[in-house]
Each structure stands twice: as C-alpha cells, then as structure tokens.
C-alpha cells in the first residue's frame, strides 16, 4: 500500500513538474524534454491504474516516437528562446487565471461528487486487466469500427502531412525541375489554371 502511495506521489509530482516545465520553460527544446519526463511519469501512473498496455504504449509511442518528431522539428525550426513577457495583450495575462478557475471547478466537481466509488481504489480486477491481449481482443471485437476509423484517420493525417510539408514550386524556392502533381491538381477543372 505504502509503496503504491509512494509511487503515486513520486510519479504524480514528476508528471506535475514535467507539465509545469513544458509551460514555463522558454526554450522549446527543453519544453520537449520536460514533456518526455511528464509522459514517463504518467506511464507510471497508468501502471498504478492497472493499464499495462497503455503504459507501454505511452512510453513507446509517445515518449519515444512522437517526441522524437518534436525534437526533429524543434531542431529544424530552430527553437529560439521565447520571451515570456507581456506581449500578446490582456488575454495572455489572464490566461493562468482562467486555467486556475477551471481547475477549481473541476476539483470541486470531483471532490464534491456524490460518486462513492471515487473514494475507493476500485474493484478487484483479474490479472489480465489492461493486458495487451485483453485490449487486442476488445479492439477486434467490440471496438472494431472505431479501430478501423482510427486507422483511416491516421492514413488521412499521413497524407495530409505529406501535402502540407512538400515543396511547392514558385513560391519561395527555385524550381527544382521536378513536376509535382497534387490531389488538388486532379480535381481542378481544366482551363482554370
């Protein structure tokens, strides 16, 4: 029990610190690293919640793959220090206030909730709860449709990213002589060029 509590507080503080780091650090590169720390802490919390598969996915996909993407982009764009100063108008200054109010509301909602189960550690669950096997079975039976939709979404996002990031002729870079054909070109009426 104590171990779990200890782990919760360590991981929770880690996650919180990571989150604050993301928000407060001015250098985007360190923000990314801070997010990695946050994600790993979160993965620990997931373990506490008996979501082994999700914890693994969190570390492998998020902290691993996605964050690498971030790092690359930061490196490419060149993460310059951003002033945390007053620019951006009044909205920017009251931003934290809004966030605080939101947290208060949510906290009141959770604490003041009459849901008794919240104050428990949850029911006893079998050893296979949250295991990759269980999740896989659910994905291919009960949640087949969302699963397929998600895969399609990924495909669309991939195509979208290609279209967005590809080189364009005649805008800012000299023509490299390689003709490109986009989906938009196919759909455009002839004569409208």
């Amino acid at each position, binding site marked *: 029990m104590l171990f779990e509590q200890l782990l919760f507080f360590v991981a929770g503080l880690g996650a919180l610190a990571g989150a604050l780091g993301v928000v407060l650090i001015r250098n985007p590169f360190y923000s990314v690293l801070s997010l990695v720390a946050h994600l790993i802490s979160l993965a620990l919390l997931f373990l506490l919640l008996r979501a082994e598969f999700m914890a693994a996915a969190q570390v492998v996909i998020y902290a691993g793959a996605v964050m690498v993407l971030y790092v690359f982009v930061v490196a490419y764009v060149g993460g310059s220090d951003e002033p945390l100063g007053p620019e951006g108008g009044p909205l920017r200054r009251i931003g934290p206030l809004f966030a605080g109010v939101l947290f208060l509301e949510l906290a009141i909602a959770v604490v003041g909730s009459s849901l008794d189960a919240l104050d428990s550690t949850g029911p006893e669950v079998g050893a296979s709860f949250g295991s990759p096997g269980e999740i896989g079975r659910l994905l291919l039976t009960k949640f087949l449709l969302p699963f397929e939709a998600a895969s399609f979404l990924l495909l669309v996002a991939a195509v979208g990213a290609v279209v967005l990031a590809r080189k364009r002729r005649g805008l800012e870079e000299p023509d490299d002589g390689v003709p490109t054909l986009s989906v938009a070109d196919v759909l455009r*009426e002839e004569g*409208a060029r």
Partner: protein
Amino acid sequence: MFTIHLSIVVFLPFAAGLIAAFLPARVGRWLVVAATLGVLGYAIAMIADFDGDSGGLQYVTDDAWISELGIRYQLGVDGLNLFLIALTALLWAAATLWAALRTEDRPRLFMFNMAFAETAVLGAFCAQDLALFVVFFDLMLVPFYFLIGGWGEGDRVRATTRFTIYTLVGSLLMLAGAIALGVLAGPGGDLSFSLAVLAERPLEAGTQQWIFLLFAAAFLVKAPLFPLHGWVVDTYRATPIPVLVVLSAALSKVGVYGFLRIVLPILPDASQHFQDLMIILAVVSILYGSVLAFSQDEARLVVAYSSIAQLGFIVLGIFSLSELGSQGALMQMVNHGLVVGALFFIIAVLTARAGSTSLARMGGMALRAPVLAALFLVVALATLAMPGSPNFVAEILILFGTFEDKLVYGLVASAGVALAAVYMIRLFQRSMHNRTEPSAEPRELGGLDLAVIAPLTVVIVALGVYPQVMLDRTDEATTSKVEAAATAADGSPSAAEAPQAGPPGGGAPPGVQVQP
C-alpha cells in the same frame, strides 16, 4: 407495360450531372442534356399513361425516411403536378441544350448545377410529404446560388446575395410553419408530415392563420408577388439566360404550386380567412406589374414585371377558391412557364443582335429575321392571353372563377388583360418593328437556337388548339384540392369564428367576409 418510378425521374438529372462532372466536358454536357431529355421522355410517357379519371396519387413511392420524426420519403403524381413535371422537364431540356451549345466557362460545373437544380425542382413538385417538400424547396436555392453567382452578368454578387438571402428568409419562415404544422397536428407525439395525413387533421382556425402567413410569405416571395418581388429586378438582370429560363418558368411555379398542394387542403379555414387579402395582393400585382412592365426599357425587366402580373393572375385563380379558378391557375402555371421560357430565349437572341438589353437599342429586327419575328409574335400573343392561346383558356377560367364570388376584384383584374396587351405588343414592336438601330446587327435565328425555341412554340400552339388534353387530366385533382377551402365558407365548425352571411349553397358574397 413498363412501370414509372418517380425516384428515377427525380434523381436522373442529378446522377447524370454527377457522372458528367468526371467526364471530359464535351461528353459531360451532352450526357446532362441526354438526361434532361430522358426526364422529358418519362414525363411524356407519364402524361400518356396517366389515368385522368382518378383524382388520387399515381406512381406513388412511399418509404420511411426519418422515422423518429414521422418523415417519409413520399413521392407521387396527380393531376396537380403532372403537367408541372412535364413543364419542368421540357424547360430543362431546352435550357440545358441551350447551355450545352454555348457555355464555355467551367461547363461541367455549370451542367452539374443545372442538373442538380432540375432534381430539386422535380423533387419539390413530386414530394407528398411536407418535410420532403421543404427539403427540396430549400435545396433548390443551392444550385441557383452557384449558377447566378458563378455565371451571372453585371452585378452578380449583389444579385446573388439579395436573391439568396431574401428567398432563404422566406424558406425559413416556411420551415418554421411546417414544423409547427407537423407538431401541432400530431397530438401526443404521433408526428406525421404526410400531406394526406395532415389534410385529415384540421387545426384550430387561429393556429391555421399564423401558419398560413408563414407559408404565404415563402410562396409569395418565391412566386413573386407584390410587394415581395424586390429580389426580381437584380436577379433577372444578372442571371444567365438558361438559368433565368428555368428560374422564371419552373422555380417560380413551385411557390404557387405550394398554395394548391399544401395550403388550401391543409389550412382551409385560414385560406378562406385570408382570401380577400390574397386576392387584393394578386390584383395589385396584376396592375402594378403590368404598369411597370410597360414603363421599362430593359427587355428582361419587361418580362420580369409581366411575370409578376401573370403570377398575380395565378394567385387570383387559386384564391378565388373556386374549381374554375384553380383549374385556370394550374393551367396558367404551365402556360406561363412555356411562354416565359420562350420569351427569355428570344430576348437572349435579340440581345446578342442588339448588343444590349435595352429596348431603345433594338428595333427593326423583323426584316432580316422573319422566322424569329414570327416565333416571337406567337409567343407574345400567347403571353397576352390572346384567345386561341392556352393562356386565354387559363385566364378565362381564372376570371370566371373570380367573377363568381368576387366580381369587383375580377373586373379590376381583367383590366390587367388589356394592360398585358400594351406591354407585350410594345415589347414586340420595339424589338421587331420601327427603324433598325445602327448598332444592332439583325440576323436570322441560327438552326440550333431554332431547335430550342421552336419546340416551345409548337407546344404553346398545340395547347392552344386543344387545351382539353390538359384539363382532362387535371380537373379531378384540382377540384379535390379546393374543396376544403371552398366549403370552409359554408360554416364548418372551425370557421365558426368567422360567421358568414352567405346565401345557402353558394359562396360568400363579396365583402361579407368578417374579420375576427
């Protein structure tokens, strides 16, 4: 024996338009023309096959659509919409043919929108479910928005904005009315929007009245009738000709058709209650439209205002609440569609020769273009309801229907017949006779233009020689539609708040209408 599926008729153009959008333009445009001709063929087969003795619906399609709200996909044909469908098919065939021959700018998109518009209009005419009708009614706006905005002339942005917003506001009022009608008429959540069901669920007279006003607003804007015709001027100026033909000939009929199909059977007491108001609007439209038609210099606007006057006649016929009047109104819808379509094509031809739509710049075309002059003459005479034209039969029925109960209004309206002679003959004379303007280049109709205009003229003449072909098939249906509203005058329970002093068995004498 083949069976007629209305869904095919309705959606054929849309499907063709969609396919054509992915074909090369020169193939695609002819595919759309072929589809409109197919619909026309279907419509002709329907007229031939139609059982004129039955007043009921034929070729019915009836499926559940949104069952939670009691909305059904219900299509059907009776005498009321048979010829309007044929009219729509004919005009779209003519207009797409016309467009196929000359639209150079984004032809596939243009043709797709035309086809889409035909589907929407056919759907509105066929729909037998109020919700479905509303859907098609609003759907009509979409292709026309793009057609006018994308291919219009002159100040097309302003025209499109005004047209869309103004008619959309009307449509939204109707949507509100339709929802209210369905909800209030369906006690205890037993919702139904089927017109046949609604007609059997009479509402309180007071409720009927405000719902009537909502519907009337939508239909009168669409028609258009004075004073809700404000969108006409800009729109008629800007709209490209093939679009204008179908806009003026078919689209405007959906509004007045709505009165016969929906308002009269479902809101009989309110129709009776507002009879005088509607007749006054109609009469004012007739006179106002006529007077303005002959003080216009722009050919398109002459026809625009003449349409207002003609639609005034149609509304007058409908709200005479007599069988003769409605029969005449229905016939006039078809006739007006035919003549106005032909007129706009002719005006397009004239404009091409004069280089301007101004009557002052035309003139003297008859010498070099005798065939054009002859066709124009036939159409112009039909427009002014020359006896022997189908329009005459329609107008005499309307006037006879009106005279029965509302003699005074009828007499005032008949002045409109004389005024029609003034503006139509003026239009003919200014463009065909007198001296030729130096800037105009009179020349004869091309063969392809002739192929568009001549068939319309032939139909006009044929209907003038034998109008019975139409009356035979329509009169059962029209009679049944007016019945409820006409008898509401005789003191049915819900009309009790408007006591009538009418003679037994007859309609109320003019002016005895008591406003609560």
